[in-house]
């Protein structure tokens, strides 16, 4: 059996998720034994014009050129994987959607803003069909390898539906709310092993909201700790602003 042909593509993002893949280090050599990486612009000059068995797409879609490009990649790919927050939920790039596009352009580029045509930031699945999601900003390497194994075995990967709090409790962290902080853990999809809280920081919600967040319960938590709801909304906007496009 020939090795599955794998490619990596990047759209508007920091390319940190590709870097997380490159950062896996020596075990990558073993992965390269079972798949053939045919395009990975960040580290390879090789290009490929055939069909991809698996295409990893990183970054969010922020202009018409990107819309066309991702559609073409979709046509050429059997399986398309959204890699990282920018691709799965729009990521921090989505914060742009809180402003008028013209105003944002003028702020950064002055009158030259017309040279930078931009559209509302979109996650990849808001433009083309996505088969697998690897959440996180950046992606969590062990989750990436799990998803890769699922893809190669032809089975689905289920993103955990429970919140980060579940993993955080298992890691025996002191709850951030008990430390007087507002944390996005209760409404954020798990799967990162509560990475940030383990390192003393709060959860910023980079993996996106849980599918069915317990908003009423969460409001009670906020009330208990005397935290105004609008502060929380501002926090949700950092990563989840693109979600509004689903409703429009």
């Amino acid at each position, binding site marked *: 059996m020939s090795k599955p042909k794998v490619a990596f593509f990047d759209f508007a993002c920091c390319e940190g998720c590709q870097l997380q893949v490159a950062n896996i280090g020596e075990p990558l050599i073993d992965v390269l034994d079972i798949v053939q990486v045919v395009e990975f612009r960040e580290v390879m000059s090789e290009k490929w014009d055939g069909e991809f068995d698996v295409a990893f797409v990183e970054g969010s879609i922020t202009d018409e050129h990107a819309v066309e490009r991702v559609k073409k990649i979709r046509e050429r790919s059997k399986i398309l994987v959204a890699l990282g927050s920018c691709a799965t939920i729009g990521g921090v790039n989505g914060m742009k959607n809180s402003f008028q596009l013209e105003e944002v352009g003028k702020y950064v580029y002055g009158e030259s803003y017309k*040279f930078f045509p931009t559209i509302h930031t979109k996650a990849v699945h808001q433009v083309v069909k996505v088969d697998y999601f690897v959440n996180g900003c950046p992606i969590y390497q062990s989750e990436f390898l799990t998803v890769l194994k699922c893809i190669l075995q032809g089975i689905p990967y289920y993103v955990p539906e429970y919140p980060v709090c579940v993993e955080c409790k298992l890691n025996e962290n002191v709850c951030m709310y008990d430390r007087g902080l507002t944390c996005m853990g209760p409404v954020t999809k798990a799967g990162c092993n509560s990475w*940030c809280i383990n390192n003393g920081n709060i959860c910023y919600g980079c993996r996106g909201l849980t599918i069915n967040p317990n908003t009423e319960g969460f409001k009670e938590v906020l009330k208990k700790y005397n935290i105004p709801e609008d502060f929380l909304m501002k926090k949700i906007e950092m990563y989840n602003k693109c979600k509004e496009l689903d409703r429009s």
Partner: protein
Amino acid sequence: MSKNISINVNYLTRVEGHGNIVVEVKDGKLEVCRLEIVESPRFFEAFLRGRSIYEAPHITCRICGICSCGHTLASIQAAEDALEIKPTEQTTLLRKLLLHYEQLDSHILHIYLLVAPDLVGVPSFVPLIKSNPDVVRRALRMKRLCNELCDILVGRHVHPISAVIGGFTKLPNLSDLEEMHKRLLELKHDVEVTVELFSKLTFPEFERDTEYLALVNDEDEYPLLYGDIGSTDGYRVSKYEYKNVVNEFVVPYASAKRTKWHRDSYAVGALARFNLNHEKLHPKAKQAANVLNLKPKCINPYFNTVAQIVECVHCVEDAIRIVELLWQRGINYDEIVIPDINELGKLPQRAGEGVGAVEVPRGLLIHHYECDERGILRNANCVIPTNQNTHNIELDMLKLVPEIITQSQEEITLALEMLVRAYDPCISCSVHMVKINFK
């Protein structure tokens, strides 16, 4: 000589981000020569407005995955400057350590995975797995080691977790220091072998005199985390005057924001730092510079990679010194910072303006913030190293092409690609870069 050449490298590979090289030669005359940046802008500076200044490091480190610790440190410096927070000595030491880890990580990626394939004539590191397995294994091992060092110190390298305004949300314990020390010694060995390996490889010969810019200060230490802005043309100004240094301007064919100070262009990065501060390098790094035949003022841009190798020696030696010093002094755990975006008003807040200037792997990085009395950002500006280098790269190309015009189109293309790669451009972080409308 009459010769027609048309080079159009669409999506330059083995760089961070998207760039094109366009060269047109007609009847032996160079007509078009430019580096186009086709990265989709992300408008960070615009959407930072309205967010808490305490969130700025978390957001702006997402400008670039590869210099994410450097962006964090520049952002923290700018915010602390605005909020009038002075870091403790321990915090400064740990920040220097973090910056060393990132310089090492980024330089190693560039030296081995991005540049080395060109020097041995292959399109990527993949064919080298078979032909030079030891070299590939070493490169990946070194990369992994740097990542693990960042993991121990700040939780991870891509978007560090524990480095925040005011200090760190967790501090290394004794076994962390021991672990970092052990890994640094392993890395030191691999860096020494790297110096030896690259002393045997040949870099292209090409020279163009230009102005080099880097942080300078009056201390004995090779300046990376703070200082004034210095130039090889003999100028020195405070970081607050950065706008007079970068003098952003527009080129007619691209409307790109570019920079110049006293000449038509200037360069930042490892070579600029070496040219300005070589005397302050660790003795072992000076030795490595000798072995690699790198002498100030070096005006061969391809030698930026060599300067990176020399910096690797410096960073690994200085990192070992810092870890040993911390070990000796012991860590003060009372300094652990509790993170917050200040919604409850517990943290210092005041209206203010601040500038952060840090040497990241690709050169001078500046963050500039202005916040209101509630700590909400009113204005933000980021000046990125690649942005500062673009015009210099293009002027290099303009001088280089006529010098090698008798070579084949493929050879010229490779020489140009290698030239751009030598600057280690990180185009994805170029929040100011232009999008070209293709005709």
